[in-house]
């Protein structure tokens, strides 16, 4: 049994055996080997509680929300709004109407990019960083193309960190928005977002954070960060796919126009004039992903139970990361590996290449050994260009991964090395 004792005793030791039992998908064989799932940064697995919540909702509770006077509709509405409340509390938003349900991080970013069409004009600037996922690049390129504004990119250093001095020189009165990831999906770098936000605010620029890779590993407090917008996805947070959250400060969300028109987002409609509904419904046109919202609430409830908690999750994942890096060294693999993203402050993501072996080849053999990793550019082609590589192999750990699984990865890599050496 894995009961991990941490040096920092503020956190509860996780009972990994028990946790693993809550994730049914982990208990299967792939290519004749017990599955080792290390593609968590792409999408995390779901605890039984999430699966049961969704199944129960569709079995006994489903109805359309917000409009019906009948029992099921009222119940579903209460549950949907309770999910919003849970998320508000989890990220410490000031109001529950600052929590907008979206399809995911990408959807949330696009909502804001679309809303800024009326705000930006030629001469204005949007700042992003060299660490961004395509979903935090392309919407801004489209926005700039539409408005004539200019996109500025903060360069990163060799270990995969935003260069602060460069950022300081880029941000100015022309900056109308700064959009950065909280944690890099490819390199794992945890950005010093508080500092970055403060600098933007000094010049009067609002900040959007892409938190897709942060929420699964840490507790995020949007009021403490003081960001204007924060977007994240349910499926990376042990919840369902197709649901996500966009947090926005009330004053900013009120300032922006609706993203999509339709049912639920209106107060009244006539052919002459339509008035929009208030927050958060203004941004939730059409029947939302009700089951998804309930599933996301279940995922947060699961992680926030006293014997788990995000502090313990982050701590344990950090131990896995340290163990992996130590084992690469002591098993004599480090010399044959090139690591990308070695910031001291990083999430449990290891991006690497076995020297002389294409990531596709490494990934294929690891898959044959039942080990799921991601290979390729991870939707961050500019990072690949920065390092002049075609892609990397990325192993990303979650709190249900074990030290034994890290050993399996290492054995797998030794085998790859032997086959291609």
């Amino acid at each position: 049994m894995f009961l991990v004792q941490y040096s920092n005793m503020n956190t509860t030791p996780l009972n990994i055996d028990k946790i693993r039992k809550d994730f049914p998908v982990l208990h299967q064989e792939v290519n004749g080997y017990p599955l080792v799932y290390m593609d968590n940064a792409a999408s995390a697995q779901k605890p039984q509680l999430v699966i049961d919540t969704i199944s129960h909702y569709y079995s006994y509770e489903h109805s359309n929300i917000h409009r019906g006077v009948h029992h099921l509709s009222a119940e579903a509405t209460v549950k949907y709004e309770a999910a919003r409340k849970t998320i508000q509390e989890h990220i410490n938003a000031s109001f529950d109407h600052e929590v907008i349900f979206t399809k995911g991080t990408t959807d949330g970013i696009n909502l804001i990019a679309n809303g800024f069409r009326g705000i930006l004009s030629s001469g204005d600037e949007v700042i992003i960083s060299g660490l961004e996922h395509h979903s935090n690049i392309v919407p801004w390129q489209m926005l700039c193309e539409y408005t004539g504004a200019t996109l500025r990119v903060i360069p990163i250093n060799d270990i995969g960190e935003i260069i602060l001095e460069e950022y300081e020189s880029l941000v100015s009165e022309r900056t109308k928005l700064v959009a950065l990831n909280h944690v890099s999906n490819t390199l794992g770098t945890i950005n010093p977002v508080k500092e970055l936000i403060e600098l933007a605010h000094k010049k009067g620029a609002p900040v959007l954070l892409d938190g897709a890779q942060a929420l699964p590993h840490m507790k995020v407090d949007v009021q403490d960060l003081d960001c204007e917008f924060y977007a994240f996805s349910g499926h990376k947070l042990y919840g369902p796919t197709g649901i996500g959250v966009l947090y926005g400060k009330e004053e900013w969300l009120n300032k922006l126009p609706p993203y999509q028109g339709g049912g639920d987002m209106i107060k009244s409609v006539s052919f002459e004039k339509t008035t929009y509904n208030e927050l958060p419904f203004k941004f939730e046109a059409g029947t939302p992903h009700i089951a998804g919202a309930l599933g996301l609430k279940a995922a947060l409830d699961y992680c926030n139970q006293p014997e788990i908690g995000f502090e313990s999750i982050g701590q344990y994942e950090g131990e896995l990361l340290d163990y992996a890096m130590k084992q690469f060294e002591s098993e004599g693999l480090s010399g044959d590996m090139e690591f990308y993203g070695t910031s001291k402050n990083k999430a449990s993501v290891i991006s690497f290449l076995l020297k002389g072996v294409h990531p596709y080849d490494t990934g294929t053999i690891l898959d044959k050994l039942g080990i799921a990793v991601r290979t390729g550019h991870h939707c961050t082609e500019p990072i690949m260009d920065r390092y002049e590589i075609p892609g990397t192999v990325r192993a990303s750990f979650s709190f249900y991964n074990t030290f034994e699984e890290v050993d399996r990865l290492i054995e797998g890599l030794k085998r790859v090395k032997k086959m291609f050496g």
Partner: protein
Amino acid sequence: MTINERQDELVEEFSMFDDWMEKYEYIIDLGKEVEGLEEPKKTEEFLVKGCQSRVWMIPAFSQGKLHFEADSDAIITKGIVGMVVRVLSDNTPAEILDADLYFVDKIGLREHLSPTRSNGLVSMIKKIKTYALIYSAKE
């Protein structure tokens, strides 16, 4: 040799391997044996887009037959590319158009031809068939 005879020959070669490990080691060997293309020939024009591994393929047409040369930056892909070329190259456009590539399945490599694999192989085969179609129309 006909296309199917070439496929059967490959199936036969792979039948001596019992486990996936030996099979992949053989593919890696095949990949290493493929002569590949010289760097200057690996141009955008001949690049077959795959998301993960890149494939380059250059067609040539002479005496009624289509000839292909190909390469990839990943060895496993290169090995399979080499097999596809071995089966399809130096046949008439009509023969290529009619070809059913069953060897991939029989060898147990179907997963590499899944469209989600994004290794350039599916696009390469499509491209070969397109060339065959173009040249069959010219004949």
